[in-house]
């Protein structure tokens, strides 16, 4: 009898708790709240006490954990199991010296300080997506921010402002916590597509805040301003069209001259937003935050939006099965892996053909073939590399748009093969042994592969058979 009473009592308590728990909320509504923070607040720590749960979630970005192809460990992309031939493909450019897998937002400042690509000649623009001080620097310095000297002017100024690595104020208004755009490059690029971001919906904003940075960009020729090549479209071939027309007309022609083929090259950067936008999930109305910021249960009962930006392969349950409710999470993860396996195979193949194309052009130059033919071959090389690089620079190993990425890799191989065909025709006329050429290419690749010091790999890309095509300026 006493047992029955106890259970009845517990049950009644439970019902009471349920009723009170459900009705408590309504009273809080009313006048608009503000955080009490300054509208210019840029320190992540200033938000810590007001939003302890979100802050704790954000600090999970410290975790370093790899997935099969990506993840968040700081590792060299030149490692054996990654892309060991990149020092050939980016030869003559900083990306052949040091190129690492990216890690959590909290490391943004530390990592840009330590990477060898930042030199005494680097410009302010390099800090644009690393520091929370950037919107204020742009406001105070105007155009001088973009072209300012990174080491002597911009970094010290940001430090003096008490900046944080990519954080709260980059996406939130510190007073109202409304989502906001703080990088003008995005606003301008969307305007160039005829989109006014003032009309953005809630769904749009859940992608736009990410799209301020996770995009392809270049530094404008006149003032080094971070610029997104979007007016012709988001597809790699449309952005290439932009670089061939709009960018060229405004004076931007290349990022560097390739040391093997002497080609004026473009370097692609993480076009996550563009790639995703053309993919099936975006077309179905999914936003970045839906998968990358799923809700997270904290303190046992409160649901918050996760601020741990990482591969959804680590959060399949909340990221994927919320929509794919009738699917098993492990089964879905297996499907993702299949897509990524196929993608990486195709990427490595496209890179390999591209290497061959660079060396064939090198041989054309040293064999005294007609300038005009070399120019045509170089145009193919430039486009081929753009096509695989824009795919490789993207963070999802193809998942953001599997079919689109595959199509881009197909175009890359087409362009490389066009180079090889043209070069072969010309070289044979000059009596060059194609067999010997191919053997030399294999030797160079072996030499790069065998070099254990990642920083020295690039030195093996050229030799007496394939002389450097770039009079090395000190960068």
């Amino acid at each position: 009898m006493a047992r029955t009473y106890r259970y009845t009592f517990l049950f009644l308590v439970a019902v009471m708790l349920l009723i009170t728990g459900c009705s408590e909320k309504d009273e809080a509504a009313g006048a608009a709240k503000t955080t009490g923070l300054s509208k210019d607040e840029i320190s992540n720590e200033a938000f810590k006490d007001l939003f302890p749960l979100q802050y704790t979630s954000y600090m999970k970005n410290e975790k370093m954990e790899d997935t099969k192809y990506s993840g968040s460990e700081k590792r060299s992309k030149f490692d054996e199991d990654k892309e060991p031939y990149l020092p050939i493909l980016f030869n003559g450019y900083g990306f052949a010296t040091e190129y690492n897998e990216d890690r959590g937002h909290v490391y943004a400042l530390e990592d840009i300080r330590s990477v060898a690509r930042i030199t005494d000649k680097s410009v302010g623009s390099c800090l644009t997506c690393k520091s929370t001080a950037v919107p204020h620097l742009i406001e105070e310095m105007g155009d001088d921010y973009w072209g300012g000297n990174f080491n002597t002017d911009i970094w010290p100024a940001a430090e003096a402002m008490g900046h944080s690595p990519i954080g709260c104020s980059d996406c939130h208004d510190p007073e109202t916590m409304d989502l906001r755009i703080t990088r003008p490059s995005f606003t301008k690029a969307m305007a160039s597509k005829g989109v006014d971001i003032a009309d953005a919906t809630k769904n749009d904003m859940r992608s736009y805040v990410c799209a301020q940075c996770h995009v392809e960009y270049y530094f404008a020729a006149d003032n080094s301003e971070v610029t997104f090549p979007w007016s012709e479209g988001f597809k790699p071939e449309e952005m290439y069209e932009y670089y061939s027309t709009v960018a060229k007309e405004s004076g931007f022609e290349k990022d560097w001259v390739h040391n093997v083929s002497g080609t004026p090259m473009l370097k692609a950067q993480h076009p996550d937003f563009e790639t995703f936008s053309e993919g099936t999930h975006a077309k179905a109305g999914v936003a970045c935050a839906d998968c990358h910021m799923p809700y997270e249960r904290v303190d046992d009962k409160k649901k918050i939006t996760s601020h741990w930006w990482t591969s959804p392969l680590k959060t399949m349950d909340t990221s994927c099965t919320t929509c794919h409710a009738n699917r098993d999470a492990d089964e879905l993860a297996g499907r993702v892996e299949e897509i990524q396996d196929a993608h990486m195979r195709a990427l490595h193949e496209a890179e390999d053909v591209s290497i061959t194309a660079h060396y064939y052009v090198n041989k054309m130059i040293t064999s005294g073939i007609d300038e005009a033919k070399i120019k045509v071959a170089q145009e193919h090389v430039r486009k081929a590399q753009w096509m695989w690089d824009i795919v490789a620079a993207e963070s999802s190993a193809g998942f953001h748009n599997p079919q689109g990425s595959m199509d881009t890799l197909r175009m890359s191989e087409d362009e490389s093969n066009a180079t090889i065909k043209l070069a072969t025709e010309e070289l044979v006329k000059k009596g060059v042994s194609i067999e010997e050429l191919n053997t030399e290419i294999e030797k160079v690749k072996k030499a790069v592969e065998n070099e254990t010091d990642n920083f020295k790999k690039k030195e093996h890309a050229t030799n007496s058979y394939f002389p450097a095509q770039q009079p090395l300026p000190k960068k």
Partner: protein
Amino acid sequence: MKGKWLRVDKKLLILASIFVGIIISVVSVKTLAYSDSPDFCQSCHIMNNVHDSFADSTHAGLSCNDCHLPHESTVGKLVYKAKVGMGHVYYNTLGEDKIPDVLHPTASTKEVIQQNCIDCHENTLQNVSHDAKENCVDCHQSVPHGKGFKTEDFYKKPNSGELLENKGGTMDNG
């Protein structure tokens, strides 16, 4: 005299009892029915999304429990209802730390739903072969909850202050 009074008393008593009985039955039936209805279910915020998509579906005229409870017998239905209800009460009070991140139907709920699909759509099953998959919803996965996974609200401009109001801050979060 005494006998007459008693007779009246008995009649009154019977009448009153019937009246009270009717009231109790009506109230219980109404209560039970109400607690089967979409209106009742969506009074917990966690059901907002499924309710919205349901209300916009061809099944909108039904009650939640037309599909979500077994209907072979009244006793079976009520027992299942009590069991599930107690489960909800438990998870929302003492068992909060055991709530899974994503809510999916349990194996027994899946069976119940499957049977309810069949009960109404039996004729279709007789006309068209439906034996390739285990459950109706393996193919008909958007019936009736899958129509769009975001509310209209997502396709409007955000309201200033709503993040702070609804999601953030120590006031709401503890």
